[in-house]
């Protein structure tokens, strides 16, 4: 091995993480778990559906790309001159997959044998694009069916309509896969342009977890990861339109073939524009807050459940990204409008001092339990780690930060984020419920 390996000890949870950075800028993380049968590797680029306007380091020109490019590129990387990559993983007995979200594209496999060969295939295929006019055209049929499938998915539609209600201009309001129309404008030149910019090792990271040997893994990565590229002096510039703090629409309703209304309530967080451990802290504090307000042990949850306005499908979540953040509630409800009114009223009637120390401790313990559960699922720990990594935060700092979080910071968060109540109600319903 030529590059140094740093060891991070997490005594409290009995794990050790190893990390290294290659001269090309690629960051590598290894979390050995020898008692597992499985190995899991995820090779990711910091390129997602929101990256639709950017400049290549060293260039001044701004490139604009159609919606759905990152996802399209993900599909196409599986294609090789001779057949597709799935075949190579299949021959090795591994199961390979990929996903694209708002900020990241990830290529992954899980294996129980032939791990090092699989890792070699993973590194190689992601580094060897093969786009032709013909294979780009062919993919449009498949992706159109993927988009159509989501068009019939009430929860997905409700979620995206909510984002369209929250955001005026930010590209998070655009569907990850784009639209049948937008992908029709994608050709191989656009794909290469994006590939060359975003699939540079300095914009990528590899996370390996499971029954693996650290040294063997590192040697293989050094040998196979694109070595001829040096880390670029400048970062990729990404441009997002200026997003006003207000919400775009208060209520959005769509009719689909569903049995009862599906809803999402989005609450826009205007405290954005930073990453790193501050972002992780904000994430933890807000998640505790939501748990205290809407969790199963809260009075509000009990009341909504007793009134039949929510059921077991009810859930909530906080999304913290550098450039956009929001809280979200969702589920099925016979009367989302009434539900929304009650929640809004209850929240605006709550004073910060109503949030008690006891409820705070319960919520914090819950988060601790949930965090530990991550480590029992190799896929979870890998994708969560990577997602925070690209935001400049270390997921392993979670426990320390959680222990430092106090009730005061949760009350502050309540005052700045939830209490002003800037929300969008999105409903997917069996029939139109209200005229605009």
């Amino acid at each position, binding site marked *: 091995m030529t590059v140094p390996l740093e060891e991070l000890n997490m005594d409290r*949870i009995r794990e050790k993480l190893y990390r290294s950075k290659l001269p090309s800028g690629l960051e590598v993380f290894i979390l050995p778990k020898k*008692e*597992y*049968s*499985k190995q899991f590797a995820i090779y990711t680029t910091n390129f997602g559906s929101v990256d639709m306007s950017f400049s290549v380091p060293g260039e001044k020109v701004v490139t604009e790309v159609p919606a759905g490019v990152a996802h399209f590129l993900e599909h196409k990387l599986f294609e090789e001159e001779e057949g597709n990559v*799935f*075949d190579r*993983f*299949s*021959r090795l*007995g591994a*199961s390979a997959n990929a996903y694209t979200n708002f900020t990241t594209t990830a290529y992954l496999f*899980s294996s*129980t044998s032939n791990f090092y060969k699989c890792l070699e295939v993973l590194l190689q295929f992601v580094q060897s694009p093969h786009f032709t006019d013909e294979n780009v055209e062919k*993919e449009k*049929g*498949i992706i159109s*069916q*993927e988009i*159509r*499938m989501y*068009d*019939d998915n*009430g*929860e997905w539609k409700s979620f995206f*309509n909510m984002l369209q*209600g929250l955001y005026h201009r930010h590209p998070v309001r655009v569907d990850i896969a784009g639209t049948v129309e937008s992908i029709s404008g994608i050709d191989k030149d656009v794909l290469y342009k994006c590939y060359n910019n975003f699939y540079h090792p300095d914009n990528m990271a590899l996370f390996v977890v499971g029954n693996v040997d650290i040294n063997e893994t590192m040697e293989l990565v050094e040998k196979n990861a694109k070595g001829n590229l040096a880390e670029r002096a400048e970062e990729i510039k990404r441009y997002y339109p200026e997003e006003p703090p207000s919400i*775009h*629409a*208060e*209520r959005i309703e*769509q*009719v*689909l*073939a*569903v*049995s*009862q209304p599906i809803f999402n309530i989005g609450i826009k967080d205007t405290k954005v524009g930073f990453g790193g451990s501050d972002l992780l802290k904000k994430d933890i504090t807000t998640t505790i807050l939501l748990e205290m307000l809407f969790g199963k*042990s809260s*009075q509000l949850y*009990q009341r909504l*459940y*007793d009134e*039949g306005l929510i*059921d*077991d499908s009810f859930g909530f979540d906080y999304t913290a990204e550098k450039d956009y953040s929001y809280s979200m509630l969702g589920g099925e409800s*016979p009367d989302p409008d009434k539900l929304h009114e009650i929640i809004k009223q209850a929240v605006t009637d709550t004073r910060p001092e109503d949030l008690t120390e006891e409820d705070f401790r*319960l*919520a914090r*313990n*819950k*988060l*601790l*339990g949930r965090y*530990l*559960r991550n*480590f*029992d699922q190799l896929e979870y720990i890998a994708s969560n780690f990577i997602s925070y990594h690209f935001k400049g935060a270390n997921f392993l700092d979670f426990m320390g930060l959680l222990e430092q979080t106090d009730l005061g910071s949760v009350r502050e968060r309540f005052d700045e984020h939830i209490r002003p109540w800037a929300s969008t109600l999105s409903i997917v319903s069996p029939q*139109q419920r209200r005229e*605009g």
Partner: protein
Amino acid sequence: MEGVYFRQQLGEGINLYLVREPKFKTVSMSIVMYRPLDENATGNALIPHILKRGCEDLKDTRAIQRFLGQRYGASLNVDVLKKGDMQLIFLGSNVISNKYTIKGEGVVSDILKFLAGLVERPLIEQDRFRDEYFVQERDNLERLINSRINNKIQYSIDRCYEETTEGQPFSRYRYGDAVDLSRLTAEGLAGYYRTVLAEAPMDIFVVGDVDIADIRDFLDNPPALGERKVKRPEGAVSPHWDGAPREVVEHMDVNQGKLTIGYTTGIDYTHDQYVPLLVYASILGGGPHSKLFNNVRERASLAYYTFARLEKLKGLMVIGAGIEISNYQKTIAIIEEQLLQMRNGKISDSELVAAKMALTNDLHSMKDSQMQITDFLINRIVSGHDMTPDDLIEKINGITRDEVVAVADGIKQAVTYFLTGGGKAGKEEVK
């Protein structure tokens, strides 16, 4: 049983299985009660939802959630599972292992006792479930039953199986039906639950970093279910489809058509062609190495998802694809071509090897998931097979092409179900 380090009978028809796996940081616990899938299906589906609302020790959701919250947010999941001709009442929880608690305090035994308490000491007052809970959960279940149309892929698979097994117990929906539900009463259901407690075999599964000492307290005070006369429900493979295949078309306001074709195989877990059938289904539609994936999706670009899947307890198979509605006939033709190739032995070495490796990879991976370990044990108990994951892996590796082709002869097409659409729905924004 491989992987089960400890098994103890706790009472008449009550068994505890402990799988000690130090690699897990959490402990998964489940209590399962086995019932035949019959006219009580809706009642069985409602019971766990009422049980989760409270018991004599913790009488409401808030009390329960505080109890769980104090134990690091241990989860509580209740459901009813459909396993072949059986319906299983299920209560489960996941909690961090005693080794990771802040002061090293024990939480595992507490949770086991809590789950058993929900089952054993339900809130039955004057011979009836508490009205408030009964009514709320009945209404929730009604909505759950109606919401089955929301997930179009699952709905079309369920509907296809229902048509394929018409008149058999397996054709009942996992959560029962709305008409039966409207006939249930808080009193009638409480009476029925007494029968369940007296008759249903009960298994308790514990998977995680747990020593016997951690659950000693529970073992010494096992669930007391009173006098029991245990009745073990039975299941059987679905008989072969008799006669010509049927076509069922259902209309809904959808953008994408869901094509689902059901088959009978006559082969369940205990059949000697069970393992060849696993390999057969994998070659046909078990992932990116399969004929369906490569022909329906990659070559013809007709679908994003396409698969062949087995219902192993009943010996049924289903093929699915999400397609443009106008491509119905075209897709069927390609699917039939793949089935023909299977029958004619047109299976390449690499297809055979890839299928075997995919199956063995899944079996090895299973050992890393508490949920899958529990599910494997439940399937063993329900089906009566006694294979371990390693037995299965060995058998899969020894399967020949001829054995796979021999399976093809017994596969009979039963029902082609197509969920198809109409016009497109609108969208409205309020600013």
